[in-house]
């Protein structure tokens, strides 16, 4: 029970479970018992039984049925909800009808109305449960249930009928089977099994029943596929041309590589995509633009003008394209209309309804984008006019697109459009059985306007429904609607379909065994002794004449009609109408006697018998002649014989005899003629059926043709793809070959016994071999066994035995011609198209690389040794300044280990007072990339002494000029530095000591001079000269001291604010007084006071001026120009002396440098310019010179106005 509940809840949650309606009448209880017995406990289906019962009879059905099954059986009351796994019985006095979509009990109609409870119930069931409804007709008499089953089928439900063998009373199931509304014909006990199978398609999760494989016959499998499709898409393929559809299913099976239809059924059940594909496939979407262009022309020429004659914007032209596929047909028609109307298009409203079952096709049609292949049939002009090209595809322009309305629509099921002027339904009907074709024609007939046109496919005709349509042009397959009143929608089945269906489905309609003799006898009796009569349908049109009815019926004048009321002879018509009406309403036989016909000449009795077995009510009318006409004529003749017995009489007699003879002759002739006629008739019928067969064959062929077309299209596509692949493959092959032949590495392919199959150019070139020497030879035997490379054979064996997939193997080998080579072999197995195992061998000559590597290694070893041994501190640093390497010398000096020293460890041995400045300077270099040069005190481990080192670092730049690393070296300059200090100290002391006596000497000479001046001594001149010499000596000593101070960085500036002009004129004056012969001219003026060391700047000016004077022995003019610009003062001292050679220009500011030329001819220490240069530099200024040898020099210096 637990399981049951679970199952139930599952189904309820889906809110979907099949409801089986069972209709039964006489003998039905027995059949239903059998069926109920076979119903499994958890089928998930609800069963509702409708039994023909007397309304007053108190039914004990539930009790009786409950004995047969464990499923609860109950009588339906209003409160009972229909649940799965229950059997319900409808109370005898009630009916089950659908009200607002819910099944409800309603009182049974009064007795006098005809009771068709099964039909009513089935119809309600179909409305409420739609495709979940299942109808079963069991044993019973009458036609009840047939209409109901039809309704269930129309709503997508499934229908069953009891097979005629097992049914106690077979007319109810037989009627249903005849009407073609039954899906399965089974015995009652087999029905539940089938129901279960169907039900499994409803369920998402498979139940235990599904796990048990059920053997299905092929037929059943096909049917199940159809029912699946019906459930999924609402399209019933049962009456589509079976041969076509089965071919399509088989085609899908082949594609899916399934052999059994049952397997395919399983696939379709499980896979929704497969359902989609199958559905699409069955629909065969073959279409093209302007299919059958000639017919299109005719349509344009003949049909359109006529249709458009009275069309206005209020009265639109309506066209229906049924089965439009991807819309090409609809667009083609739209284009035709557009072309026909051209500029008048706006005056008429055009509506083209294009419908198809397939949503996919409709979606594509709506998109209206077609690729180039699909554009076949459209002329260039039309493409230009009606399409826009986008991304290589063609899109239908809006004007055309707007004329068409697309909808998913099944014209066999959905309500049709109305007031249509032209229906195009081409190559759709060929897929349908005549039954559905007929249905289609009724639909089209309904949809079309009077004088509307129907346009069919090449091999389609209105065939069975020619009563509706008249061909306009047979070749064009255009038909007009016949317009005659009183037509009705004929959907009921006819005999012809039955036979066809019997043929196609092999439905098991039991063959009635006939006793031929009995039948013949019946025929004779019928023809000789039955009263003449006719069978008419509900519209009273004569369906069949029986016997001679000439006395009672005659063709009516005017339009030919078979209506019995029109054909009835004078006086009979009225009575017939009455009789028929009465019989129709009462559904009972009606007899009327003593009717005077032909102005009372004949007395006739008529009997109208309703034939209720058929789906359509028919009536049999029997005529009985109550007045014996033979007697009358006999009397007349005897009378005349008695009256006149004359020669005339004799002649008359003779004439009468002749006449009789003639009559006799005529009769026999006319009989013969009739026989012939009958033969012709039957021949005609044969021809007709033959033509029908041909027609169906033709349709079949057309279908096959379309199928072939679609297959062909597929094949073309596949072929094209294959072709493209092939092309690609070829290109790839050529590409690969080109690579192989141009590749630098020698390549070789050997086969299984190491014979060379192919080799590339590089191989021949590198090893100096030719093709003849190589191909087909064993690899190791090449060049007189010169290729027997040790180890290669074993490596190749490993490849061959598939021990290795890839080998990279290096060897140095002395090749016969190529000499000593280092080769890296790459070997890997390859397979050629014949599945031969080959080995691809690539030679990578790495000889030169190896040599370079060796050389590099040696170099780097050497370098390391050099660096290690170099008697200087050497190190490298990374870009950020952290040290990456120290040589052994440093480690020995510092006593640090390598690891301690690198990065920033080395800073520990810098004298702490020194460290900050070192860091600052080093950071500056790292930041700017400028060379680093600094004197640093490093502590020596051995004696703990800080020793001066000149440390320098130079940045290593990459190609872009970025610093990659630093190389640093530090030289121990401690001893030199100490010595220099001593020297400087010495110079300082020496110059001081020299000045002391000089001071005394100068003072005494001055005193002497003063005295001599007073006395006017003649030797005063000497004293003055001595004074000048002492002055000069003083200057020289001063210069020496300055140099020494500059050397020690002890040159200090005494910065004050002073008047530059005065300073310059002072300088000029002091030089002037020493060489009064020269003319020194000052130009320019500095307006603001200048900051700097006045004395030092003056010293510079004097130095430059005295140089100018000194080196201009002949020319006596010296120019001094001072100027100010942008806060910078420029002083130019120009002479016209001997000048300076170009190569000396840069050196003249170096310490102790004396230009050769000058040194020879002029006195001086050669340190004046050096001192000047240093002074100006200390003032953040510049000192430089320009000169033309022999013409003079100009010395410039600049200083900023404020320091």
């Amino acid at each position: 029970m637990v399981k049951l509940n679970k199952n139930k809840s599952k189904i309820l949650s889906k809110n979907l479970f099949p409801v089986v309606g069972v209709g039964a009448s006489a003998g039905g209880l027995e059949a239903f018992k059998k069926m109920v017995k076979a119903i499994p406990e958890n089928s998930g289906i609800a069963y509702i039984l409708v039994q023909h019962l007397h309304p007053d009879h108190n039914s004990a059905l539930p009790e009786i049925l409950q004995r047969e099954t464990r499923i609860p059986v109950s009588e339906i009351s209003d409160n009972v909800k229909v649940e799965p796994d229950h059997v319900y019985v409808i109370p005898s006095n009630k009916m089950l009808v659908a009200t607002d979509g819910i099944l409800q009990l309603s009182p049974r109609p009064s007795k006098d109305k005809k009771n068709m409870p099964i039909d009513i119930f089935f119809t309600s069931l179909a409305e409420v449960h739609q495709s979940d409804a299942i109808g079963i007709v069991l044993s019973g008499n009458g036609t009840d249930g047939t209409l109901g089953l039809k309704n269930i089928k129309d709503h997508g439900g499934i229908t069953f009928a009891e097979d005629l063998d097992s049914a106690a009373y077979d007319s109810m199931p037989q009627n249903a089977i005849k009407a073609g509304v039954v899906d399965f014909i089974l015995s009652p006990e087999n029905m539940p099994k089938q129901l279960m199978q169907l039900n499994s398609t409803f369920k998402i999760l498979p139940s235990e029943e599904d796990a048990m494989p059920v053997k299905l016959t092929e037929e059943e499998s096909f049917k199940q596929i159809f029912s699946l499709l019906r459930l999924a898409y609402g399209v019933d393929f049962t009456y589509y041309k079976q041969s076509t559809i089965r071919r399509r299913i088989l085609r899908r099976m082949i594609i899916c590589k399934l052999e059994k239809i049952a397997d395919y059924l399983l696939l379709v059940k499980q896979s929704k995509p497969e359902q989609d594909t199958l559905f699409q496939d069955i629909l065969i979407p073959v279409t093209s633009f302007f299919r059958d262009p000639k017919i299109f022309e005719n349509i344009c020429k003949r049909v359109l003008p006529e249709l458009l004659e009275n069309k206005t914007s209020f009265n639109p032209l309506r066209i229906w394209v049924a089965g439009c596929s991807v819309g090409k047909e609809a667009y083609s028609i739209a284009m035709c209309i557009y072309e026909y109307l051209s500029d008048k298009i706006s005056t008429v409203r055009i509506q083209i309804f294009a419908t198809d079952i397939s949503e996919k096709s409709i979606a594509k049609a709506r998109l209206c984008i077609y690729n180039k292949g699909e554009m076949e049939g459209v002329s260039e002009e039309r493409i230009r006019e009606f399409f826009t090209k986008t991304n290589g595809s063609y899109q239908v322009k809006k004007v055309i697109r707007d004329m068409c309305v697309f909808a998913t629509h099944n014209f066999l099921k959905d309500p049709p459009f109305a007031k249509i002027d032209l229906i195009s339904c081409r190559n759709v009907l060929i897929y349908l059985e005549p039954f559905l074709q007929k249905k289609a024609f009724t639909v089209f007939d309904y949809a079309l306007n009077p004088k509307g046109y129907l346009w069919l496919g090449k091999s389609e005709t209105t065939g069975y429904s020619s009563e509706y349509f008249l061909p306009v042009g047979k070749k064009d397959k255009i038909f007009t609607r016949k317009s005659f009143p009183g037509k009705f929608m004929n959907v009921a089945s006819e005999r012809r379909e039955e036979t066809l269906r019997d043929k196609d489905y092999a439905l098991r309609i039991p063959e009635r065994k006939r006793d031929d003799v009995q039948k013949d006898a019946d025929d004779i009796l019928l023809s000789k002794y039955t009263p003449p009569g006719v069978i008419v349908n509900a519209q009273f049109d004569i369906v069949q004449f029986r016997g001679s009815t000439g006395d009672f019926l005659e063709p009516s004048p005017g339009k030919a009609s078979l209506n019995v009321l029109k054909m009835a002879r004078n006086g009979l018509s009225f009575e017939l109408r009455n009789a028929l009406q009465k019989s129709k309403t009462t559904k009972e036989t009606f007899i009327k006697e003593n009717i005077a016909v032909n102005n009372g000449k004949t007395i006739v009795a008529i009997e109208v018998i309703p034939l209720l077995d058929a789906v359509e009510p028919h009536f049999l009318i029997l005529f009985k002649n109550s007045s014996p006409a033979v007697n009358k004529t006999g009397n007349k003749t005897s009378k005349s014989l008695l009256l006149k017995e004359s020669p005339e009489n004799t002649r008359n007699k003779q004439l009468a005899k002749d006449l009789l003879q003639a009559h006799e002759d005529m009769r026999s002739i006319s009989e013969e003629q009739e026989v012939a006629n009958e033969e012709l008739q039957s021949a005609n019928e044969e021809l007709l059926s033959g033509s029908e067969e041909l027609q169906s064959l033709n349709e079949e062929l057309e279908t096959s043709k379309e199928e072939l077309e679609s297959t062909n299209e597929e094949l073309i596509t596949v072929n094209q793809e294959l072709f493209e692949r092939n092309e690609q493959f070829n290109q790839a092959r050529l590409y690969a070959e080109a690579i192989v032949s141009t590749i630098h590495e020698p390549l070789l392919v050997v086969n299984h016994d190491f014979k060379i199959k192919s080799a590339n150019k590089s191989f021949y070139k590198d090893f100096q071999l030719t093709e003849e020497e190589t191909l087909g030879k064993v690899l190791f035997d090449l060049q007189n066994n010169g290729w027997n490379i040790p180890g290669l054979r074993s490596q190749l064996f490993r490849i061959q035995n598939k021990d290795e997939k890839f080998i990279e193997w290096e060897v140095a080998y002395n090749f016969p011609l190529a000499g000593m080579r280092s080769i890296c072999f790459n070997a890997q197995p390859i397979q050629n198209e014949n599945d031969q195992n080959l080995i691809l061998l690539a030679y990578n000559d790495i000889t030169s690389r190896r040599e370079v590597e060796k050389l590099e290694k040696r170099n780097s070893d050497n370098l390391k040794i050099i660096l290690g041994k170099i008697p200087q501190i050497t190190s490298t640093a990374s870009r950020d300044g952290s040290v990456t390497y120290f040589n052994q010398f440093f480690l020995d000096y510092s006593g640090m280990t390598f690891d301690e020293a690198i990065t920033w460890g080395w800073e520990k041995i810098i004298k702490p007072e020194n460290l900050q400045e070192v860091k600052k300077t080093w950071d500056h270099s790292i930041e700017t990339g400028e060379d680093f040069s600094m004197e640093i005190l490093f502590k020596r481990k051995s004696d703990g002494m800080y020793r001066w080192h000149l440390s320098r670092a130079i940045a290593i730049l990459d190609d872009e000029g970025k610093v990659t690393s630093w190389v640093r070296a530090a030289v121990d300059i401690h001893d030199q530095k100490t010595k220099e200090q001593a020297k400087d100290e010495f110079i300082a002391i020496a110059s001081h000591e020299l000045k002391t006596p000089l001071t005394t000497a100068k003072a005494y000479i001055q005193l002497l001079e003063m005295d001599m001046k007073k006395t006017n001594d003649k030797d005063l001149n000497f004293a003055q000269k001595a004074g000048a010499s002492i002055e000069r000596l003083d200057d020289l000593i001063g210069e020496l001291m300055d140099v020494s101070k500059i050397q020690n960085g002890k040159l200090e500036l005494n910065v004050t604010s002073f008047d530059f002009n005065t300073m310059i004129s002072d300088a000029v004056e002091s030089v002037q007084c020493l060489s009064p012969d020269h003319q020194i001219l000052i130009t320019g003026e500095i307006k603001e006071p200048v900051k700097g060391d006045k004395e030092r700047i003056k010293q510079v000016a004097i130095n430059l001026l005295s140089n100018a004077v000194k080196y201009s022995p002949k020319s006596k003019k010296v120019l001094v120009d001072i100027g100010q610009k942008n806060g910078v003062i420029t002083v130019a001292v120009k002479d016209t002396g001997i000048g300076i050679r170009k190569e000396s220009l840069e050196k003249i500011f170096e310490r102790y440098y004396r230009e050769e030329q000058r040194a020879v001819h002029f006195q001086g220490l050669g340190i004046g310019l050096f001192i000047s240069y240093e002074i100006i530099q200390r003032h953040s200024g510049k000192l430089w010179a320009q000169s033309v040898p022999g013409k003079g020099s100009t010395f410039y210096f600049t200083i900023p106005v404020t320091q």
Partner: protein
Amino acid sequence: MKKCILIYDDDPAILMVCKIILEKNKYKVETRLFCDNIIQDISKVMPDIILMDLWIPTIGGENAINLMKNNSETNHIPIILFSANAEIGIIAERANTDGFLKKPFDVNYLVETITNTLQKTKLKISRAARQVH
């Protein structure tokens, strides 16, 4: 009354020539070869102006000047630094002397410097005296 000049220099020749020049110009001249006892020297000689060599044994001219300047008894006496050193101007400023004289010097300039310095000192003193009163 003759103004008294106290000259410190380690070179007797210089002392001699200075004495000759300045005595010629009516100054009383006292000379010393060492500067260590500057305070005592001053108290003994009572100079109106001092001429101090920079490099003089044993404590050096600058120290001697400092000693004198830090002594309230002696700090009013004008002092002129007197050296062959090229940076004499800077040193003189540092030592806060009343003037300096670069060796070798011009005879006239020596006299001028001393005369001018004494003149300035006299003005300063009289001004200071006026302010006191």
